């Protein structure tokens, strides 16, 4: 690819250079957090973290570790910029989102530093696309202070167990109520919609349940409109870890296996909607 080489004369000038043989290993993960237009990117020697937030209540992070890339160089840490995720995804899938079998789109990504555009060089079958994406001032992202020592309840499920439940969530309900408990009903998803309430229980010894660590009964409500976008990650994932801490904050961690069999993680944090009166639980 002579074009690619001539445009990047000196890699020392770049704060970030990354290349990937299969662009879908990046674009698929980014699609899992694409529920808002803009994202903030943080790159360190370990890889890239891309963060999307909504309503100061929900945050999604996609981690693409350095090992996923065939080449990954970061000069000064951390490299931070904000970008239009919708446009980035359009660029990454410029050769189509479901390419013909046997053809891969290669990517080379370069960022010169603050104030510079993010350069993307994509190549498929000898055709090269060059994208110059303008970057924006990075914004402060939320710190959910979700600490594993404060975790009260933790469940790991095979994603297929949750997939149907999430795709059929009663969206007329304002909230999704999650019950986690060492006793019955163990793990319950409830909605309260126009057509009535619905409860979905997962037994502790279900085949779908990979691990069950609940210490204390917790009933928390989360805005359904904020959780629904996590379905995008759920659909791609093979396992999901559901955790709540002592404040009722929810962490959903999705394990996603890419086309080369490597594992990536996407996580969603969501704060609880409201305190629930004793009588209702």
């Amino acid at each position, binding site marked *: 690819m002579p*074009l690619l080489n001539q445009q990047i004369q000196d890699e020392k000038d770049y704060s970030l250079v990354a290349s990937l043989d299969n662009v879908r290993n990046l674009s698929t993960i980014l699609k899992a957090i694409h529920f808002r237009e803009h994202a903030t990117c943080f790159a360190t020697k370990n890889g890239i973290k891309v963060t999307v937030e909504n309503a100061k209540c929900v945050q999604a992070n996609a981690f693409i570790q350095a090992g996923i890339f065939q080449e990954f160089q970061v000069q000064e840490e951390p490299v931070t910029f904000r970008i*239009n995720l*919708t*446009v980035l995804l*359009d*660029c990454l*899938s*410029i*050769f*189509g989102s479901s390419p013909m079998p046997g053809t891969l789109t290669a990517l080379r990504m370069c960022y010169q530093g603050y104030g510079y555009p993010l350069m993307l060089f994509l190549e*498929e*079958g*000898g*055709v*090269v*696309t*060059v*994208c*110059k*994406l*303008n970057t924006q001032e990075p914004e402060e992202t939320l710190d959910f202070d979700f600490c594993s020592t404060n975790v009260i309840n933790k469940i790991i499920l095979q994603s297929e167990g949750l997939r149907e439940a999430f795709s059929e969530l009663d969206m007329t309900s304002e909230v999704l109520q999650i019950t986690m408990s060492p006793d019955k009903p163990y793990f319950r998803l409830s909605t309260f919609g126009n057509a009535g309430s619905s409860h979905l229980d997962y037994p502790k010894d279900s085949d779908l349940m990979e691990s069950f660590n609940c210490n204390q009964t917790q009933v928390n409500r989360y805005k359904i409109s904020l959780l629904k976008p996590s379905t995008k990650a759920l659909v791609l994932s093979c396992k999901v870890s559901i955790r709540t801490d002592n404040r009722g904050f929810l962490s959903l961690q999705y394990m996603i296996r890419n086309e080369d069999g490597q594992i990536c993680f996407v996580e969603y944090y969501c704060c609880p909607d409201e305190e629930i009166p004793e009588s209702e639980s």
Partner: protein
Amino acid sequence: MKFRAKIADAACLNHFTRVSSMVAKLAKTCTVRISPRQLNFILADKVASGGVSMWCELEQENFFSEFQMEGVSAENNEIYLELTSENLSRALKTAQNARALKIKLTNKHFPCLTVSIELLSVSSSSRVVTHDIPIKVIPRKLWKDLQEPVVPDSDVSIYLPVLKTVKSVVERMKNISNHLIVEANLNGDLNLKIESELVCVTTHFKDLGNPPSASADASHGRDPEQMAEVHVDIRKLLQFLAGQQSTPTKAVCRIVGDKVLHLDVLHEDVSLQYFIPALS
């Protein structure tokens, strides 16, 4: 004025159905020109008034086993009709796997193109489906606006790359911008480019080859590296690409700098010319 024709061969029938659905994707209403040797599908939004135009041509004898026509007069032995392209393509869709197809000019309270399709059935009795497509007969004095467009001298003409790749690139670009810059040179390079406040995207195609140019062309004596460019409405190009369901036998793109993008495509024996005017 008379017209009746029949297609009896399955391959011809499928090909004709494909042509009609391609036309339907390119033009909402089109003009059908019937002459003793050819059938044309015409869209003639004047380039000058900002529209696209299309000229699709097929030899009648390659499709029809019977073809009888009588034009408006002996010296003007042609018929021009206007119809909604979707109506024709929808009628022909039922003709897939049919035994035969008949097309006839009729008058059933209003002028119609009557399409009768003889379908195969398990029993020996055959079934016939008939569609009456309303048409408007175009009077003689308006014919002059519907003649084969003159291809202007192009600055650069170049073979198009695989249309599927072009289509997916243009589809993504459409999400970002309404304007597309098409540039090409005589060295086989073609670039598709969009520029917006957020992003600049350029897709480079290489080694496409240039068709041999007629010596009268504006491209004669041109520096092979020098790009000719034209700005077009991205939706109009996408409309053309969406209509190309099968891989064409030949596809050429001609750029008449800042005037028009001319796409010249051959599907076996059906030729399609599509003109997208330049945006100023």
